[in-house]
């Protein structure tokens, strides 16, 4: 037990140690976290009226970000899966970083849902035993189950591994591997259930199709590894942890194929909906072409398309894909493209027009931007600390010693700058 407490202290100490650049980054994030605090305060005090949401568009920016982040969380599996199932050596070394990313992403998801709730003070109503958990009827309860389960699996799996490494002990393979394999399947479930959350409502025809889960998963496995590539490149740049080029090649291949399938599915949806052009396709038409001058989503949709298609074509070229200077920029483009396509580009046309056919434009309010930006900052804050701590352990800089005082000892002499 003493050793575990020491581990937590050492891990956090390593996570919060850094140079000027590190502290500047954390300060930068803290500024946005403060805005989040202010935004949440105003929203809880005055109600959701401070958002841009209304009777017509009652789901908006918060849930859009939620859906997207669930995908990013699930995408940790793109590191874990090749590492364990295909015994990919390079990814195997850094697999725990993927788990750290999943932890940060799930925490963001939970914060987005809380921000979306009209009565966050009554969150306990949904907890089993003290509240009522409408399971198995309500899809939202399934989502709560799979998300918290996934969070726990990643915390247990990731920190068990780190703790054993920290104390220089042997992993209990049977335990650890079962956690890993369950987490792999579980990752698919979180995104599938999130798709079911919105595609099981015939009142919203744009979402009401069975392609939603697979489309969610493919876009997630394109956007997620894109982010992971960027994070890993940063890790490689700013910490002594070595990540082989090969790891990036695997990830960029996953991005390109999943992106290709996602684009194919998008195209299928467009043809299926627009060819007969029933009333049920009005949401998609509104997204793509606007409706009688209500076209605030149109530029976003086409930007997303350009970014995704452009990214796909570039990544198809092996020379470009393997160029680690160009890769992060393509990854950013893909990430932003999917963020738009699967965020507001999915949420808003789903609720527009309303069931009685009314079109209403929605723009997030400044409070919504503060809260969303703040949650992203919280995510990056947690991710930075977790990655720094984890890479410290991986590098054996952070190790258990019998002394009461923590010891930072490592083979590397260069101090970490981030």
């Amino acid at each position, binding site marked *: 037990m003493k050793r575990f407490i020491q581990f937590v202290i050492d891990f956090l100490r390593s996570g919060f140690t850094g140079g000027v650049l590190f502290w500047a980054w954390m300060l930068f994030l803290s500024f946005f976290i403060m805005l989040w605090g202010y935004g949440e305060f105003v929203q809880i005090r005055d109600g959701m009226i401070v958002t841009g949401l209304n009777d017509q568009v009652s789901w908006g920016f918060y849930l859009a970000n939620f859906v997207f982040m669930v995908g990013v969380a699930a995408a940790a599996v793109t590191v874990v899966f090749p590492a364990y199932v295909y015994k990919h050596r390079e990814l195997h070394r850094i697999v725990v970083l993927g788990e750290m990313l999943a932890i940060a992403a799930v925490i963001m998801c939970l914060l987005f849902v809380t921000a979306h709730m009209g009565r966050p003070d009554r969150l306990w109503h949904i907890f089993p035993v003290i509240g009522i958990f409408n399971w198995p009827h309500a*899809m939202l309860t399934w989502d709560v189950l799979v998300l918290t389960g996934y969070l726990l699996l990643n915390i247990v799996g990731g920190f068990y591994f780190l703790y054993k490494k920290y104390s220089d002990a042997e992993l209990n393979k049977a335990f650890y591997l079962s956690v890993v394999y369950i987490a792999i399947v579980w990752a698919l479930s979180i995104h599938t259930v999130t798709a079911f959350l919105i595609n099981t409502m015939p009142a919203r025809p744009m979402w009401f199709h069975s392609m939603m889960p697979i489309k969610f998963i493919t876009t997630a496995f394109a956007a997620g590894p894109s982010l992971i590539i960027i994070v890993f490149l940063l890790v490689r740049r700013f910490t002594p942890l070595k990540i082989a080029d090969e790891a990036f090649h695997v990830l960029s291949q996953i991005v390109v194929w999943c992106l290709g399938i996602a684009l194919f599915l998008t195209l299928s949806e467009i043809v299926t909906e627009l060819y007969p052009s029933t009333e049920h396709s009005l949401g998609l038409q509104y997204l793509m072409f606007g409706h009688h001058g209500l076209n605030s989503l149109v530029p976003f949709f086409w930007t997303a398309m350009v970014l995704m298609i452009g990214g796909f074509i570039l990544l198809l070229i092996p020379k470009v894909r393997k160029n680690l200077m160009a890769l992060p920029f393509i990854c950013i483009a893909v990430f932003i493209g999917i963020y738009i396509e699967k965020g507001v580009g999915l949420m808003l046309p789903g609720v527009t027009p309303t069931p009685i056919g009314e079109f209403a434009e929605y723009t997030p309010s400044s409070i919504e931007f503060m809260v969303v930006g703040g949650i992203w900052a919280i995510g990056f804050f947690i991710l930075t600390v977790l990655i720094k701590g984890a890479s410290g352990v991986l590098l054996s800089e952070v190790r258990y010693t019998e002394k009461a005082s923590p010891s930072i000892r490592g083979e590397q002499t260069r101090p970490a700058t981030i």
Partner: protein
Amino acid sequence: MSKEETKVKGPNGTSRRDFLRKAGSYTAASLSGTAMLLSDPKPAKATANVSWAEHFQKNYRLMTDEEKKEAVTRLEHRYSEEFGKKVEVDDAPAMDGVLFGYALNIQKCIGCRRCVKACVAENNQSRGENQQIEWIRVLRMEKGKFSAEDRDRQGYPEDYGVQVGGNAYKPAGVVLEGQHYYEPDLVPEKDAFYLPMQCMQCEKPPCVKVCPVRTTYRDPDGIVVIDYNWCIGCRMCIGACPYWARRFNWGEPDLPAQEMNPDTHYLGNRPRMKGVVEKCTFCVQRTRKGRWTACVEVCPVGARKMGNLLDPESDVRKVLASKKVFRLRADLNTYPKFFYFME
């Protein structure tokens, strides 16, 4: 003013305590003023005296009879204080052998919206500039018409997109088949008919299915009700409702004390709080006492009928037996108990 205070009255006729109190409140006022400048000013007056017990009460359906009584008394005290009148909160359960149904004659409806107004007054909806909630929406449906001049050169209304219903020539921001923003000087208008919509009290309500905390449920008399104190405001039900019947309290409801209807029901028209969903309850506070709903009562043309579906002699059963009846979105298998009919 008590005797003691009279003794320490200052030269200006104000007691020291008064002065301190005033000074204190000035300080508090200026402090909160600063806070208000920093944020949007909107004191949460209605939530100020909500007791801890109310925060931590159980879901209404799971309460024992005593707990229900307690909750109801607690609310009666709070509302009476807040609105300055004797407020009664009813907790009448569903009656045995009753299944409420509703029938609306679209041939008769003249679109006067008296039902909307009566509903707002009866059911204590939020009103005013900031947040206006109406449980009934009257759609103005354009009568089928054809005018050669309205066609564009191709004979197809391209500028306005796909031809849908009678509304393809209308500009942006309105609904497809009908719209609820009409404001004529006189109703009924020549070229329109009207289709009021409200909660359909479905037998298989999608909203109930998706609610993660079972705060909304179907009572045995067929009315879908909401425990406002249990709602977490996730708005899943709003997404799932195919009839756009549910409304959310985006901010603190604006309900002037003098306009507040003190005859309330726990599951019906008692004042709501911000962040919860509400909708038509067939005036549960009235119908469970054998009265008509407010909309039925006020309708000047008698277009609205309601009654017990289990009673063959009820108005609604007679309509079902003798008129041409249809329901909205029957394809979704929600089995609404709200029927539309024609002669």
